[in-house]
Structures are given as C-alpha cells and as structure tokens.
C-alpha cells in the first residue's frame, strides 16, 4: 500500500498536471541529497520567501511544497503520514487534533513560548486575524462599517446592492473557515444574525481566501467576510479596489501552525526546518508579501489569538459538527 502510494506520488509529482493539488513547487537544487516534503495550506507565493531563505541556509536540501485546503491536508496526513515531513496549516483545530491523535512528532529542543505551542508538537508561527474585506466602489459615498453589527445594518439598508454580492467561506469544505465560524459563534450571537442576513442576500460560498479576494478585486462581490488578513494584506496594494476591516466588536485571530509528521522519513531535517521558520518569523523579515509574525500576547484579551488547547477539538466532534453545520446551513442557505 505504502509502496503504491509512493509510486503514485512520484508519478503525480512528475506529471505536469498536479492531480488534486492546488499548487506544487520545488525549491532548491533538484539533485540535492536531502528532500523535505511539506504539505501546506498556505499559497506558494506567501511562503516562498521563507523557503528560499531556508534553501540559502541549507543548500543541500530540496523542498517539495504541496498546497491544498486545510480539510484535505488533514485527510491526506492521516491517510499517508509517511509521505510528508512537515504539515503547515491555518486550521489550528485540525492540527491540534493531529497531534492529540499521535500523528505529530514531539520536538523538545525547539524553544517556543508555551501559549504558542502544544506538547512541543504543534508550533504556531504567525498571528493572522480574520478580516472583513469590502470593495470600495460598493461603499462609495457611504460610511465604511467598523464592526459586524454595522455591516449587518449596511446590508439590511441596501439589499439591492449586496444581493448575490456577499461572500464567505464554505465551512463544510474549508477547515480554516470552519474554525473562524465556530470561534465567531462562540464569541457572539451577532455571528448568527450576520449569517442570516448573508443567507437572505444569497451569499456566495468559497473554498479559499484567494478566490474570495479575486472576486472582490474584480467586483463580483462587494463584501468578503472572514477573509484571512494575511492574504488580503498581501494583495491590498495591487489594485486599491478593496479595503480590509478588522472588526472592532471582537476579533478572531488564528495562528498558523506547523508540525512534523511522526512518520516523517527525515525527522532531523524537518526539525531543522521548524526551528528555522520559528526563528525566521520572530526575526522581523516581514515584507508586504510575506506572512505576518507571531504577535506577542497583548494585555488583556482584546486581540488574543485563538488558544491552542484541547478545547479546539470540541467543534470537530461529529455530533457537534453536524449540529453546527445544520444551523449554519439553515441560516445561510435559504433557497
């Protein structure tokens, strides 16, 4: 089975058409002696500066970089853990559950604050808020909403402008979308009211932040709710077509996490890579195009990140998930 899978993977990799992958790339010399296989939910463009820096430091390593959605990533790592050395995902809950279920290799040598790691297995290296992105033209001559409540009011005031022109994650497909939605739902009832309003405007559902921003840029949608701030920021300057809002009522901030697969065939390199990204992210190599750093814990809970704790698994419970998805569909899919 393992052999076949490896074979399939090699074939997949060799063929130009990447089967099932959103994207894939190879960094470093292809005939280097070590190969590091990374499965990630982060777009290659955002991650490449870091990978290139790593290759510069370790020229004898080739990095194979596979991009897929967070839910698919979780599925693949569970199915063929030996195929990947490192898993990087924005779905904290899925990553934590991977570690809880024993799929992550503990790396006791990496020094990282306790709030930013779990069991020395899951390491957070960015802080990324979920933002509301709005197309400037749709709000021309109007006040730009600062919070979810104001967004609800704006959409209720002019439903004709927003009909078919609001978008958010399809939480059934996207792991990070599900994480944002569940954390929002935990925080406030406003979330459900917003979902109902969005449902009444026949909201569009997306698998990923990238697609949402594409549609926002070309004016297909006027509002994108719970877009990954890092993605929006990376492309904000390009057209000035949209702006991002950090909701003032309550923010939902996710930490991107990395773990080393327990079945990794190259655990030493993988550990070095994790050490590298943890250090890299804290050393201020940040440009507009790169991933944001790990935010220090602010005073109070105002901008607190979603905590890396076992409770993240709550919404992954089958019963709980079914119930949540049912409520979400009831609110959002009304026709």
């Amino acid at each position, binding site marked *: 089975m393992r052999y076949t899978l490896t074979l399939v993977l090699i074939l997949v990799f060799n063929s130009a058409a990447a089967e099932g992958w959103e994207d894939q790339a190879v960094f470093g010399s292809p005939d280097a002696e070590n190969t590091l296989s990374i499965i990630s939910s982060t777009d290659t463009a955002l991650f490449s500066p870091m990978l290139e820096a790593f290759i510069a430091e370790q020229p004898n390593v080739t990095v194979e970089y596979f991009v897929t959605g967070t839910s698919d990533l979780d599925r693949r790592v569970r199915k063929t853990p030996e195929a990947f050395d490192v898993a990087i995902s924005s779905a904290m809950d899925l990553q934590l559950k991977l570690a809880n279920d024993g799929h992550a290799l503990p790396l006791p040598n990496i020094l990282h604050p306790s709030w930013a790691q779990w069991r020395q297995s899951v390491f957070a290296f960015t802080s990324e808020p979920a933002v509301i992105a709005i197309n400037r033209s749709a709000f021309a001559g109007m006040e730009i909403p600062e919070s979810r409540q104001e967004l609800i009011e704006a959409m209720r005031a002019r439903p004709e402008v927003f009909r078919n022109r609001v978008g958010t994650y399809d939480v059934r497909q996207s792991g990070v979308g599900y994480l944002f939605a569940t954390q929002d739902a935990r925080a406030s009832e406003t979330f459900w009211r917003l979902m109902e309003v969005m449902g009444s405007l026949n909201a569009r559902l997306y698998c990923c932040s990238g697609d949402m921003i594409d549609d926002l840029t070309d004016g297909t949608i006027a509002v994108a709710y719970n877009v990954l701030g890092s993605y929006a920021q990376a492309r904000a300057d390009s057209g000035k077509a949209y702006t991002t809002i950090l909701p003032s009522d309550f923010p939902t901030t996710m930490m991107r996490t990395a773990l080393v697969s327990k079945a990794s065939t190259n655990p030493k390199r993988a550990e070095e890579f994790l050490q590298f990204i943890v250090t890299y992210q804290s050393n201020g190599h940040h440009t507009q195009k790169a991933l944001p750093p790990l935010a220090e814990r602010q005073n109070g809970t105002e901008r607190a990140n979603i*905590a890396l704790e*076992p*409770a993240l698994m*709550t919404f992954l*419970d089958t*019963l709980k998930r079914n119930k949540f998805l049912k409520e979400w569909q009831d609110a959002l899919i009304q026709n």
Partner: protein
Amino acid sequence: MTVKVAFSGSLRNRLVVTLIGGAALLALLLFFAVRSYAVQIAQSGQDSILEASVTSILDAAAIRNGVIELDLPYSALSMLNTVADDRVFYAILENGEFLSGYQDLVGQTDLMPSGFLFETRQIRDSSARVVSANRLLIGADRRIKVQVILAQTQDALSETLSEISRNAALFGFCFFTLVAGLSFWATKNTIGQLDKLTHSVTRRGPHDLRPFTKPVPREMAPLVTSLNSLMMRLEQSFAQSEDFIAEAAHRVRTPLATVRSYAEATLQRVDKEENRDAMRAMVKAIDESSRAAGQLLDHAMITFRAGHLEQHPLDLVELAQDLVLRLTPIADMKDLKLELDSPQSVPFSGDSVLLQNALRNLIDNAMKYGPTESSVEISISHKEAVQIKVCDFGPGFPAHEIDTLTKRFQRGENAKGTIGSGLGLTIARDVIEAHGGEIQLSNRSGGGACVTLSL
C-alpha cells in the same frame, strides 16, 4: 599503676547511631508519606476535573424529536487544559453504541449502572486516567442511556509528582541533617557530663578523698554516690593502715628497747667471760631485730606512701644536712666521719619523709660496711639532673650481685656478721622510683661501694 579497662562498645557511638539511624528512618518515612499523600491529592485533583468535565458533557445531552442531541460544551475540554498539554480522548455512546469521539476508547469500559468509574490505563502508548459515567434520558416514547468515556494523559501529573518528590526528598534530607546535628549535640552534651566527672576525679590530689558535692544529672547520682562511698571506705582504710604502722612501730620498738637496756645493764654486772659473751650476742641479736623491725615498718610505710606520692617543694641539701647532724653521734661511736659535699641549696619537689628515709638507709648501710677510722662521703649535685651519691670505703658490692641487690630481703654475700635485714637498698630504690628517678650501684676503683640516686 593503671589497670587496663575492658571496653564493651561506646556510649557515644551507641547514642549517635541510634539517634541518626532513627532520624534516617523517620526522614525516609516522611518522604514516602508526603509522596504517597501528594500522589493521592494530585490524582484526586485530576479525577475531580475529569468528573466535572464528564458531568458537563452529560448535562449537554438531550432528546429532541426522539433523537439524541449532544452539544459538546467548549468548556468541557477547555477545563482539561494542563501545563504539560496533556492529550484528551473521549467517546460518546448511546445505549452502548458508539456515537462520536475516539472509537478505540470503547470496549474495555463496561456500562456502569450509575456513578463515576475511574481507572488508569494505557491509551495510545501513554498512561491515561479514564473516567466513564452515564445518564439516562427519558423521551416521550423511549429511554436512552448516554455514556461518556473521557481520558486524559498523565504528563502534567507525573511532572507535578516528580516535583513533589524532589521537594519531599529535599525536605526529608533537611530534616535528617537537622536531627543528625541535634543528636550530635545531645550526645556531646550527655557524654560531656561524664567527661566532667572524670576530669574532676583525675584532677584530685592523691590524698583528696573528700566526697563529690558538685551537682550532677540525676542519672549520674547513683554513680557519684557509689564513688563517694568507695572513697569514704578508702579513706578509712588508709587511716587504719597509717594507725597500724605507727602502732606497730611503737609496739615493737619499745619492748625491744626495754629488753636491750636490761641486757646492757646485765652485761655490766656479769663477770664471767662466757656469760658476757652470751649477753653481747644477745644485745647484738636485739639490735638486729630492732633494726629489722624498723626497716620493715619503714618499707611498709614507703609502699603505702609511694602509691600516692605527695609532692612538696623542699631543699635536698637542707634535708641531707639535717640527716648528717642526726647520724653524727652514731658515726662517732664507730669512729666514722660523715662528709657532706654539696652546693648551697638544691631545690626539689617530692616527699621529704620518703627521701629522708631513703638517704638515711643508704648512709646507714655505708656506716655499717665502712671500716673504722674511714669516712662516708655524701655528695649532692645538680648539673643536668639532680644526683645524690653515697660512698664508703668498705669491701664494695660483690660484682656479680650488683644487679640483684636491690631486690627485697637480698643481702650481699659479704654481709655476714653485719646487722641488717636486706631492705635498705630496696627502700631507697622504691622511693627513687616513686619520684621517677633511678638507683645505680657501683664499686670504686680504690675499694668501697657507691650508690647513686639520679632524680
């Protein structure tokens, strides 16, 4: 004279070993007690959190439209967050059938009728605390038993335990050190009382037989009482001995002197030559007896006094002059001259009675063996050591007997015809040895014997 005391162990060691052994045992007990208590508390802490978590999960279960609905509370797992990031597993069952969570948790746990069931077992390669509980939900037409199994690994617990163990060990060690120090101090203090008594016994003079009156600890009172009564008896015995010696000297000498004076008187009155010879022999025999008795008593007294020597400062020259003065009449009778050659004074510390006795015996001997018209030379010097030398012009010591002459009752071969008991040199030797000196016998080249006392 010291008798070697047989030891049987040491009180100090026995005390120290008992106390320190006890302390070590107590420290060990303390360590294990604290540790096992901590284990219990830590375990019950984990148990109560697990129990609260399970309760909150069970509380969230409800029957809606005939179907079980379980809205897993976020707090149920949130409260299981630990410092060591322990892993959490759970399973939710409906009437024994798996609903959600971790299926591998089911199976070993049976469905309990009521209450919480706790157990510790291996789950996915780590030791975990497992709790299971259930709740009966009653719907419109059916009863559903919801069971929740919750497990948490014990990394934080074992971290806490190892920390507690470390602290308990440190605590036990400190306790041990403290008690060990205390027991050394207590032992030293207790033994110190014995040392104090020993010291005050040793420090006493040879004739100080007063009872001990200084306060001692109650436990030592019987010892001091016995010691006091022993000393009282010793004092009585000494007094009796001294009395006896004085009495005996008096009782023996007086009748002998009486008999001698009668014999002298009779000798004056008897004319027949053979009778006179008999009387002279009688006087000589009486003299010999009298002298022997005197020396015996002297020797007894010396033995008694030498055992516990009294030391007083005295002048040897003065002592010798006094003796020469007293013995001159007797020397005159024998036509002997006593010549004393000495510096102005030779201070010395010793028992004057004994020293005088020894010197007198030596001069006596010299007078006895020295021929008439000769002299007895007495010289005292103190260049390096104090030396007293008594020499005569008699026949000298027989060369082969020089080594044995100082033994008790030993008389030289050439002593026949001379009055004596053989105790003179013995007395001198005993006295000198009691003062830490030695006696030397030698013959002069020109004839005559010399006795040297080196002090």
